[in-house]
C-alpha cells in the first residue's frame, strides 16, 4: 500500500512518543476499520489526521484514549501499556487527556457552566467557587462564548455546542488533547480562532494535540505532522510540505478537494435519460 516509503516516516520508529499505537487492528462485525495501524504521537507536537469520511478517523482517535479497545495490537501511554487495563485504572490515565467528541457530547441535563466544571468536580474538591467561576469565564472567553454560562446545550446552536465542548475538553489543562473535527460546523472566522487556540495551547502549555479534521486550511496552519488515513491504513505521513507535494494520487485528490475519476463517472451516469426517473407524478 505504501508507495513512497523512502519519503514517508518509517513506521517502526513509533517507540518514542507520549501515546503509541502498535499494530492496531479494529473490526466491527466483519468490517475491518483499522488495519494494522502503527503510530507514535510525539510530545508537545500537533498531529493532524486527515482522510475521507468514514475511513476510521474517529475510531483511530478513540483508540488513543482507549474509549475503544483494539482487536489486535497495543496502545501505550508514556511507555505503559493501557489497552488491557481495567476501566478503573484507565480512568486515572484518562485524567491526563482532554477529548472533544465529534458530536460535542455535552451533558444536556447540565448547564454550560456545569458541563465545563464536570471534570473539575469529579477530580477535585471545589472549595473556592469564585475561582471556579473565573476559570469557567476564562475558558468560555477563549472560545468566544462568555455570557453563556447559564444556558443549556439544547438552546445553543451546533457551532456553539461544539465550542462549549471544546472549553470542557481543555478545562483541566490536560497534557494531551484529542480533537475530533473541532471546526466542523463553524464559520471560517471561528475555525481560525480554534486554530489559534490550538497553537496557543501548544506554545504556552506544551500540550500534545491530535486533531482530526477535513479542514485543510486548519491542517496546514496547526500541524507539525499530518497523517492521512485511507481504507484503514496510513497512506501518507509527514509535515505540511511533504503532504502538499505528496505523489500519491488519493492524497492529492483529498487535499485539493477534487473528486476522483471513478466517482465522477458514477455521477455522470446517474440521472441521465437512459435511467428510470421516478417523479412523484409516476405514483399517482
Amino acid at each position: 500500500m505504501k508507495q513512497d516509503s523512502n519519503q514517508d516516516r518509517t513506521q517502526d520508529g513509533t517507540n518514542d512518543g507520549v501515546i503509541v499505537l502498535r499494530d492496531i487492528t479494529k473490526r466491527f462485525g466483519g468490517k475491518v476499520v483499522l488495519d494494522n495501524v502503527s503510530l507514535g504521537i510525539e510530545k508537545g507536537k500537533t498531529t493532524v489526521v486527515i482522510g475521507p469520511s468514514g475511513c476510521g478517523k474517529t475510531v483511530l482517535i478513540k483508540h488513543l484514549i482507549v474509549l475503544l479497545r483494539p482487536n489486535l495490537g497495543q496502545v501505550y501511554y508514556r511507555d505503559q501499556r493501557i489497552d488491557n487495563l481495567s476501566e478503573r485504572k484507565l480512568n486515572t490515565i484518562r485524567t491526563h487527556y482532554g477529548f472533544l467528541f465529534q458530536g460535542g457530547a455535552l451533558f444536556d441535563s447540565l448547564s454550560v457552566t456545569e458541563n465545563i466544571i464536570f471534570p473539575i468536580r469529579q477530580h477535585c474538591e471545589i472549595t473556592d467557587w469564585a475561582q471556579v467561576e473565573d476559570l469557567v469565564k476564562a475558558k468560555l472567553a477563549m472560545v468566544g462564548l462568555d455570557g453563556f454560562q447559564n444556558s443549556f446545550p439544547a438552546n445553543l446552536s451546533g457551532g456553539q455546542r461544539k465550542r462549549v465542548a471544546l472549553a470542557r475538553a481543555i478545562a483541566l489543562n490536560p497534557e494531551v488533547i484529542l480533537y475530533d473535527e473541532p471546526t466542523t460546523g463553524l464559520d471560517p472566522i471561528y475555525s481560525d480562532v480554534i486554530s489559534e487556540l490550538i497553537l496557543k495551547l501548544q506554545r504556552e502549555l506544551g500540550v500534545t494535540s491530535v486533531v482530526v479534521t477535513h479542514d485543510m486550511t486548519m491542517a496546514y496552519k496547526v500541524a507539525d505532522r499530518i497523517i492521512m488515513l485511507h481504507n484503514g491504513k496510513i497512506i501518507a505521513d509527514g509535515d505540511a510540505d511533504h503532504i502538499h507535494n505528496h505523489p500519491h494520487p488519493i492524497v492529492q485528490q483529498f487535499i485539493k478537494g477534487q473528486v476522483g475519476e471513478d466517482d465522477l463517472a458514477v455521477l455522470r451516469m446517474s440521472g441521465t435519460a437512459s435511467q428510470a426517473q421516478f417523479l412523484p407524478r409516476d405514483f399517482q
Partner: protein
Amino acid sequence: MIGAVGAKTIGGVNNIGRFARFVWQSMIASFRSCLSPCTYPLIWTQMHIIGVRSVPVVMITGAFVGMTLAVQAYDQLAGMGLEEHLGVLINISVVKELGPVLAAVMLAGRIGGALTAELGTMNVTEQIDAVRSMGTDPVRYLAAPRVLACLLLTPFLIIFADLMGIIGGYFVSVVVLGINSRAYWNFSASGVELWDVSIGVVKGFFFGVALAAISCYKGFTCKEGARGVGQACTEAFVASFISILALDFALAVIFKSIYNTFWPLKSLV
C-alpha cells in the same frame, strides 16, 4: 436451526453474565457512594425525581386497590355473614401482596421507563463515553445514585401505597357499605401483624434494586438510534415487571419458611 438455537442460547447466557457483572459493579459503586459525601447531591437529586414525584401515582394506585378489594370481597363475605371480617381480608392483601407489587409495577413504568430512556439517550449521543473520557466511572456517576435512590425510596413508597389502600378499603367498607367501624378495625388489628407489614416493606428493597438495575443496564447497553432507545425501554419494563413478580414469589416462599421456623405454632392455629 440448531446453530440458531445455539447462538440464541450463547447470546442469552452472555447477556445474563454481563448483567450480573453490571449489578455487581453498581453494588460496589453504590456502596462507595454511601461512604463519600461528595456524591450525596447526586443521590438527593435522583431521590427527588424518583421518589418525591412518584408519591401521587403510588397513592392513587394504593387507594384503588383497597377500594376494589372491598367492593369485590363484600358479596362473598356478606353471603356467609362474615362481612365484619372484610377488614382482615383487605388489609392483609394490601400490605402483604397487592400494595408492594402494584406500587413496584407502577414504579417500573414510571421510573424504569424514564431511567432507561434517559441513560439510553445519553448512550447514543456519546454522553456516557464523554463521562468515561473525563476519567469518571459512568456506573458510579450515573447508575449508583439511581440504584441507591430506588433502593431507599421504594419501601417508603410502598408504605404510602399501603396507607392509601387501607384508607380506600375503609372508606368503601365502612362509609359506603356500612360495616360497623369498630368491628372492622378490631378484626383488622387481630388479623394483620407487624410481620405482614414488614415483609411487604422489605420486599420494596428488592423490587427497587431490581427495577433500577434492570433499567440502568438496558439504558447503558441500548442500541443506536431512536428505535434502539424505544426498544430498550420496552425491554426494561417487561424485564422489570417479570422480575418483580418472580422476586415476589421467591420472597413469599422464603419469608414463609422463616416465619415457620421462628413461630412454628402460630401457623397451625
